[in-house]
Each structure stands twice: as C-alpha cells, then as structure tokens.
C-alpha cells in the first residue's frame, strides 16, 4: 500500500496540482497551506516532507524546544509540545522521522498567538521527533528522540 503510493509519488501522479506546484517550488508553500497540504502530508520520508514544505535543509536552532517525554508508555498517544522564543513565528510543524509519513501536524500562527502549541501524536516506533519553525521567513529546526515502549500482558 505505502510502497505503491511511493511509486506513484515518484512518477508525479496522484499529487494535487497545487501540491505539485509547491513541490516544484513554483508557488510559495503558504498558498498550498490554504487547503490541506496533501503533498506534504503524503510525502513519506523526513527529507521529502521538508522539501514538500519548501523548507529544504533547515538549520538547527537552540531557540526551539520540544516538550515531549523521553519515553512514551504508549505510541498511540505521545504528547508533543513545541515552543520557541524566536520572533515573528509564522508556522510550526511536527515531524516524526520513522512514521510512514513524517508530517504529523502544521500550525499557522497569526500575530498575537504565542509560539507554543501542544498536541498528541501516534508513533509506530522509537523515533526522532522534529519541530520545524518558520520565523521571519526562515525555516529552523529542533530534534528530540522519543522512545516508545511495549505494554503489559498481551500488549
């Protein structure tokens, strides 16, 4: 199923026109964000997702913090919070490297909304979690590993 979709992705079929344009860098990702960003949510790997978001290879930033546990008791619900002291934050995205599709959620923050969001995500296995922040037109990133453990009894 996933493999099949990846094949489709390679050949370029199955992507919305908007997504294609965004992936090709023809239009700004912000425009694609107006509707559900299918190309980014279905991009697969971390690298491809970053490309689909128009983020390229973002630099690491010590000003972004990821509030997540080192160990999650269950991968079905992993609390993940992202906050940053960077000025002019436009958006925050949460990416989980080892999930079939890395992108979990994107938040667009209007002026006046604090750069501090929390949600809960599914993680299939122990993985690096990335917070991608767009601030003042620039993409920056932070990373944290979250271990996922198996539960008691039959699991």
């Amino acid at each position: 199923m996933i493999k099949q979709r990846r094949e489709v992705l390679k050949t370029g079929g199955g992507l919305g026109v908007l997504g294609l344009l965004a992936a090709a860098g023809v239009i700004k990702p912000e425009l694609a964000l107006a509707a559900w960003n299918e190309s980014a949510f279905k991009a697969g790997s971390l690298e491809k997702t970053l490309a689909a978001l128009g983020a390229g290879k973002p630099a690491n930033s010590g000003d972004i913090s990821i509030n997540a546990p080192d160990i999650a008791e269950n991968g079905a619900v992993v609390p993940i919070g992202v906050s940053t002291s960077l000025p002019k934050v436009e958006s925050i995205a949460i990416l989980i490297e080892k999930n079939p599709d890395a992108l979990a959620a994107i938040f667009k923050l209007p002026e006046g909304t604090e750069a501090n969001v929390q949600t809960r995500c599914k993680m299939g296995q122990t993985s690096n979690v990335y917070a991608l922040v767009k601030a003042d037109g620039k993409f920056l990133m932070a990373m944290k590993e979250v271990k996922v453990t198996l539960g008691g009894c039959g699991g």
Partner: protein
Amino acid sequence: MKHSVLAGLLAWAVCSGVQADSATDEIARYREMIADGNPSELFALQGEALWKQKRGPKNASLEQCDLGLGPGVVKGASARLPRYFKDTGKVEDLETRLMTCMQTLQGIDPKLVIDAPWGKGEKETMQALVAYIVTESNGEKIAIDMRPPQMKKMYELGKMAFYYRGGPMDFSCATCHGDKDKRIRLQDLPDLRTQAGAAAGWGTWPAYRVSNGQFWTMQHRLSDCFRQQRFPEPIYGSDVTIALSVYMAATGNGGTVLTPGIKR
C-alpha cells in the same frame, strides 16, 4: 579474576538499577503530561446528555434513577458503589444498577446491554453514562457501606475469587496484584490486598485507555483482566465481577476517587 567478575556484576546491577529508575521516572512524566486533557471528558459529555434524554419503550430519562443516594442524585454516587439495594435485593455495582434503572424506568431489556459488544449499541450508551456518573464522584472518598450481611458475603466471595488460580497459565488475580512494588512490563501493579493499593486501583478506574482510544468501564476492565488471565469470559454484570468489585472497593475504603482515569 573473581574480583573483576564481581565488580562487573556490581557495575551492571547498579547501572540497570539506575536505568530502570530513570525509565520509571520518565513514564511518570509521560503520565503527568497526558493527565491534563483526558478524553474521558468527551464520553462524559455524551453521558450527561444520555442521562437526561428520553429513551426506550417507556420514553423516559434516567433522571429519577436511584444510584443509592436517592432518585436523581448523581454527585458522589459512584464513590459509594457497589452497595446493597433493598428494591432489587441484590448487591449492584454502577453498571448493574444502571441496567436496573434502564429496565424499570425506560423499559430497556438488560439483555440488550449484556449481549452488546464493548463500545457498541447499549454498551456504548452504558460507557458514556458511566463516564458521566464517575466524573461526578471525582475527589470524593471511597465509602462502601459494609454493614449489610449481603455485602459481607460478597466481600468474602470476592476475596476467594481474587486468590482463585486456574486456567492454562495457573493465574489468579493475586498473581499480578498480590505483592507490593511489582510491575508488568513498565506498568506498576497495584497491590490490591492493601488499602493503598486497592484505592489506587479501584480509585482510578473507569478510565480512558490511550492504547486503543476507548473508555473502559470497570466491567470492561475486569473482563479484560480475566482475558489476560486466560480464564473464560465473565458474563457482563455477573456475580463474580460484583464480588471482586466489592472486595477491591471495600479494601480501598477511605481512599480518594480519581475517576475517570487515563491509562496506557
């Protein structure tokens, strides 16, 4: 040589000890992080609407249901259940009492609840009602009235069931819940023989389970214990489930009700 082996052993013993502790601490942190924003609230919201909604052949609401503190009193009711009810002549837990009310007030056949799969049909109704009612006892003390002889008998039967070993794995409830400071995988096991342990166990169920996104009533919790114990399936609301509930709740008497809980 011998010394180095011993030193090595000590080193791993210390290391693994530290590792286990930090893992336990991190799990505690995880639980703290998910405690705020318990999706049980979503079920409670539905339950409150269902409590007030006219349903069943008699087209009546449950607002006149007597959960033990008089008709319509929900606040604090589940902290005092199970209890002996004179009108039915039975010891009932929250769910069997609700079945009684659904039958008498609304005309809903208990079989519709008993036979429904978990989370479906009238069991879905039940789980929402339970979420609502147990939320209304949050912060109260567990206060089981053990004066009626029927309660004393149920307690003794529950205690016998607690220690009863059987099935292909020879397990009893006590196999996992009959010793202090044990855990299964990374989950702490409450020692249900003690007041503190029983209060911690009984007082935090029913709960939302993050592993499957379901709200589990106490009947569901007990049924799954028996499943993992490799026992046959207990019938919904059957006496063995009531007896075990009385044993646990009475042992935990005086502890704080923290329902609805949120669990792995």
